[in-house]
């Protein structure tokens, strides 16, 4: 029941997470920052703008991104296979990529290509993480993970660290905000969306927050307090990282993911399988 409510209200919850994040970021930069409700103000403003679309397919792909993102979250929360949730997330990002590369703007096309680089970097790791959950818990089902009596974080410390360092890639945060890169390609894939269509992307991002932090929560197993601590830790950590790093090149991101993060997670999985 709680997961149904969580799924339905995921955009709203994600909006609040984003609002908190904007305040935290502003305070870290010694600013006041916007009010907590700011993302919703943005949301309602965008709804009232005149809809301008490049072509209908482009707009459709923007909405597809939002729907697939929500669907991935629903699959994740409503107790289906974790692996399927990961694949639905891939579909969501692919919709974004296809939409972005269907227009002529070079920023949009560059952003789409960079978004693919993001996928190459983090998707193998997501799959590895799900597999490691299977090895620990013995099931792909979220319910079993949440009822697992041990502490997955103790079995999977390296996977957790690798996942922590992947969050900046998933949520477009500073060392790896390559696809969004506001000062380079002005938002990348989202540049050509406007008004209500941009809204779909904007809220899709909020859902992604919930999607990502759910995974962080799973590392607590049945100990929900541990999960909550891990989520708060992950939230603060990525904000700190966001505020203390410069943006790196996409080549460096892919290298980092494949040379450091994936071997690290794989090592954890191998050790787990041996023991």
């Amino acid at each position, binding site marked *: 029941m709680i997961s149904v409510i969580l799924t339905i209200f995921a955009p709203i919850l994600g909006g609040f997470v984003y609002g908190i994040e904007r305040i935290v970021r502003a305070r870290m*930069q010694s600013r006041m920052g916007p009010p907590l409700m700011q993302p919703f103000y943005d949301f309602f403003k965008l709804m009232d703008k005149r809809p301008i679309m490049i072509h209908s397919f482009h707009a459709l792909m923007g909405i597809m991104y939002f729907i697939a993102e929500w669907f991935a979250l629903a699959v994740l929360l409503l107790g289906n296979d974790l692996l399927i949730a990961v694949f639905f997330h891939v579909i969501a990002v692919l919709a974004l990529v296809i939409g972005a590369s269907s227009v002529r703007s070079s920023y949009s096309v560059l952003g789409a290509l960079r978004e693919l680089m993001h996928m190459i970097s983090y998707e193998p790791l997501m799959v590895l993480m799900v597999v490691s959950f299977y090895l620990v818990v013995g099931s792909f089902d979220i319910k079993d993970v949440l009822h697992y009596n041990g502490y997955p974080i103790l079995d999977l410390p390296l996977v957790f660290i690798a996942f922590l360092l992947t969050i900046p890639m998933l949520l477009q945060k500073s060392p790896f905000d390559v696809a969004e890169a506001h000062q380079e390609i002005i938002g990348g894939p989202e540049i050509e969306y406007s008004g209500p269509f941009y809204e779909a992307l904007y809220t899709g991002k909020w859902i992604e927050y919930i999607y990502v932090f759910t995974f962080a929560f799973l590392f607590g197993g049945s100990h929900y307090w541990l999960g909550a601590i891990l989520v708060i830790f992950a939230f603060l950590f990525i904000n700190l990282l966001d505020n203390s790093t410069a943006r790196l090149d996409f080549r460096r991101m892919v290298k980092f993911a494949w040379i450091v993060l994936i071997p690290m997670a794989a090592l954890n999985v191998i050790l787990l399988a041996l023991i």
Partner: protein
Amino acid sequence: MGNKIVVPFGSQHIALPEPVSFLFDTKNEIITNVKVDVGYVHRGIEKAAITKFEFTNVSYLLTRICGFCSITHAGGYHHGIEKLLDVEAPKRAEYIRLIITELDRIHSHLLANAHVAEVAGYENLFMQGVKDREIVMDLLENITGNRIQYDIYTIGGVRRDISKETAEYIKKQLLKLKDKVLKVYDFYDTDYTFGLKTKGISYISLDDAKKYNVVGPIARASGLATDARAEFDYLPYDEVGFEIQTRTEGDVWARNIVRQMEVIHSIDLILRAIDNLPEGDIKVKYKGRPKGETFVRVEAPRGECFYYLKGNGTKVLERVRVRVPTYSNIPILKELFVGEKYSDAQPIVLSFDPCMSCTAR
């Protein structure tokens, strides 16, 4: 990624405060060719200075060439026109001019450095840099009455004096600023990701810097010790002990470091200037009309600024020629892009601290 994508950078772009257009041909995000258009800001100031304005008012026009180095333009013009009129500003006025010029340099350098951090994706460093800069802006507002366009120069002196209390206030605030600047300096110097983004990018060798006649912090970052403050007599820099700051790395990182070093040196210069502030008038009367011609070099925050003035004994000058620092740095900037990544293009452009409104006038 992508066989050949043409990426426009400007004339409207979030990383650029002013209109300049670069058109990059990229292949896998590596730049293979570049087209530059610097003419967006051309307003025709040189023409207006010799037709519409009398020599007493030209200064107001010339300071509005650029908001960053407005005081340098006023300095260059007034140094030249005072030569032509054969007046000499009193010592106290010269010192006040020096103080304002150096304060202007500090705020310009801090903003330039912060902007490089911003386009490198390091938003927090931008915020910290600009936060410190507000101290200087307060000082400037305190002394001159405005934050950006000061117009404190007048022929034969300055408009406003620095009172004893203000001098004390400046000293106190500058010492505070120095601590803060040293803190941020540490970040520019040692931050790992910022180093990854800036070290070794767009390297200019000493030989290239000389061949292309690079000026300002860009030249000094390559080890070329050129500075109009040392090479031309226009303000009492010798008396306050000016030294040229150089680095030898010649990349984006070194340019930031040079600017940061200059900020600290400028703070020292101002402190010394305030300690030795001579007593006396701040303005002398002049008479006559400008006649003859003169060449002036002054140091703007971005480098050497050249002025040529020619008067013919009437109220209106015959020729005003302004050659600004970015003007002589654009040729090498154009050469630097080829072979660099597109994601490094913004730090490269901003590390030159380009001033298009100066360049096109």
